[in-house]
């Protein structure tokens, strides 16, 4: 029984008898959240429209929805043995989900077992389930408008969907009509899958179990199918293995990055030698009186060139608390050789002060890295009442070009006089966790890609679920 049987088609307008043609109209799509162009049937005479809720629609679009009907391991007349029972495929009905305007079909294959009993194989999106009739202890479809009672379990009717017949072939238990609707309820109970199928004249209750494609191909597939299926399984297995390996490698790299972060230690001796070049010297800027201090720390050893370091300048509350005031600073990292050259090897406080007072005017900069920041402590009131906030630490990263001995110069400007020792300085070699992160992301990406391929790789001419 093929769909080109004229008996199965209703291609005349029920209103005027005119011919129906394929057409489109704009409809709002909830998933796409925009208007989309959906197919409809339309009477060429009176313009009457036939949408997915009408049998005419399926009469018109049935051939499109059955275009890939040969993409299956099952075929009429093919025999196979599953779990010791031999089946012969004798018929098929294809349904389309009424809610979907794009193709969303599944096939119910009818098989007769060697003992003469009927059996159903349902094939959808590469998955195959085996179904048999089931007689429940109790079932009530109608008493509650919102749910079905099934052996004491309530099944919500919200999960119902309507299947419309779009193709039929072979021997079937009843005479199907293209576009004929059946309401389906799929649910699980005690680990088993059940389907209640309700059409105008019949309710069927079936219990099913998922079949492995391996078993199905072994039973019903030809030699070429078996070969391609083995290839599919092998490739998927390889992709799965690679996905696991990449995931493990990615996790290992992440662990290394974490270990590196946790084992980072400050550079020793940065604040060991200190030169106070100036302490709370009154200055005026823009009519505001402030105090300026200058300190030089060093020399200290930065042992790794072409490496990432973090510099942190902070207020040491244990020396002097900051209270409702601000202080700005400028940090300069100066290589020892450049400093010595700039002061002609005269490391006297006066020579150093002169140098740093004019440091911005020197043609060849003495510093290899600099950054600035502010510390502040404030209070006030707003709608939520009193608040008190402060920021007492500034951090920045830099890449050190060359290893060697260095000095750190700090120039500090404050509202109130402040002890030079109240500002601390910390340099830390940051191990290159960023590179680890990049490698980790690449490995994780490869893992995801392989996992996707493990699910989707398919050498077969039809869908095989992952």
């Amino acid at each position, binding site marked *: 029984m093929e769909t080109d049987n004229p008996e199965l088609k209703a291609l005349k307008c029920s209103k005027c008898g005119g011919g129906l043609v394929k057409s489109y109209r704009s409809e709002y799509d909830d998933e796409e959240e925009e208007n989309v162009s959906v197919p409809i049937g339309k009477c060429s005479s009176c313009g009457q429209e036939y949408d997915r809720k009408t049998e005419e629609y399926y009469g018109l679009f049935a051939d499109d929805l059955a275009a890939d009907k040969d993409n299956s391991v099952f075929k009429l007349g093919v025999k196979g043995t599953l779990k010791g029972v031999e089946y012969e495929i004798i018929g098929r009905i294809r349904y389309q989900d009424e809610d979907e305007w794009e193709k969303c079909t599944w096939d119910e294959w009818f098989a*007769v*077992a060697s*003992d*003469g*009993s*009927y*059996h159903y194989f349902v094939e959808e999106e590469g998955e195959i389930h085996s179904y048999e*009739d089931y*007689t*429940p*202890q*109790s*079932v*009530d*479809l*109608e*008493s509650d408008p919102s749910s079905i009672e099934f052996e004491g379990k309530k099944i919500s009717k919200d999960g119902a969907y309507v299947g419309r017949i779009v193709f039929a072939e072979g021997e079937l*238990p*009843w*005479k199907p009509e293209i576009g004929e609707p059946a309401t389906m309820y799929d649910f699980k109970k005690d680990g088993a899958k059940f389907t209640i199928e*309700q*059409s*105008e*004249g*019949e*309710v*069927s*209750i079936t219990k099913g179990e998922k079949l492995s494609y391996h078993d199905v191909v072994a039973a019903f597939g030809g030699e070429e199918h078996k070969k391609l299926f083995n290839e599919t399984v092998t490739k998927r297995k390889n992709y799965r293995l690679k996905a696991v390996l990449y995931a493990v490698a990615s996790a290992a790299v992440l662990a290394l990055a974490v270990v590196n972060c946790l084992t980072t230690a400050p550079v020793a001796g940065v604040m060991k030698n200190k030169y106070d070049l100036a302490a709370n010297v009154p200055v005026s800027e823009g009519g505001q009186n402030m105090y300026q201090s200058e300190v030089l720390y060093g020399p200290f050893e930065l042992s790794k060139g072409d490496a990432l370091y973090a510099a942190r300048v902070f207020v040491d509350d244990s020396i002097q608390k900051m209270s409702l005031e601000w202080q700005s600073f400028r940090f300069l990292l100066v290589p020892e050789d450049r400093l010595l050259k700039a002061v002609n090897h005269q490391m006297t406080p006066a020579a150093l002060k002169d140098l740093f007072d004019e440091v911005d005017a020197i043609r060849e900069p003495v510093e290899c890295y600099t950054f600035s920041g502010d510390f502040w402590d404030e209070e006030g009131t707003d709608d939520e009442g009193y608040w008190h906030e402060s920021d007492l630490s500034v951090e920045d990263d830099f890449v050190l070009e060359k290893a060697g001995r260095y000095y750190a110069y700090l120039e500090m400007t404050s509202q109130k006089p402040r002890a030079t020792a109240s500002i601390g300085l910390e340099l830390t070699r940051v191990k290159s966790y960023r590179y680890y992160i990049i490698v980790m992301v690449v490995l994780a990406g490869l893992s995801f890609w392989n996992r996707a391929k493990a699910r989707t790789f398919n050498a077969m001419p039809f869908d095989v679920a992952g």
Partner: protein
Amino acid sequence: MAAAQCASCGAPVEIKNRFSKVLVCSYCGTHLKVTGDGFDAAGRHPKLAEFPSIFQVGSRGTILGKPFTALGRMRYNYPGGHFDEWFLEYDGGTAWFTEDEGTYSLFTEVEEAVEFPDITTVRAGQNVMVGDKKVMVKEKGTAEVAGAEGELSFYVEPGTKVVYMDGVSEGKKIAIEATEDEIELFTGRPLLARDIIKS
């Protein structure tokens, strides 16, 4: 019951079950009503067409481990095809065995459904009360008696229209058949092929 002769063709016929009400002559197809005095010819009808069936008249074996003998069958035609109802001698009593669309059912309880709602309004999916039984109707349709063979426990003239309903109640299969004269309710269970062992 002792052997006798067909009232129509004189062929030897024999009733094997004391509950049988009809015997179909295997030679000429005449339906012979069983009476106290012997057989009355009720009509002559064509023999049933040979469709594959799990049984034939005289088949023996066990169903669910209990012995059976297939005594006769009724065949019904409906728009979707046909189904057979086998009258069995089963475990010392009688039973009906249906074979429909490749599914098998055994009905061991048969009763007259005197309290039955208006059969014309019943539809698939509906719950109906039959006596004290709540039955969910799975299918309703109209069939026509196509014919019979062997011995049967009741007689229905071929061509008679029968409204049939299949349903479920309390984990059992329910079959209801209604003619103009009576409504009968069969209670039973589905069978798997392995439940039936022919000897």
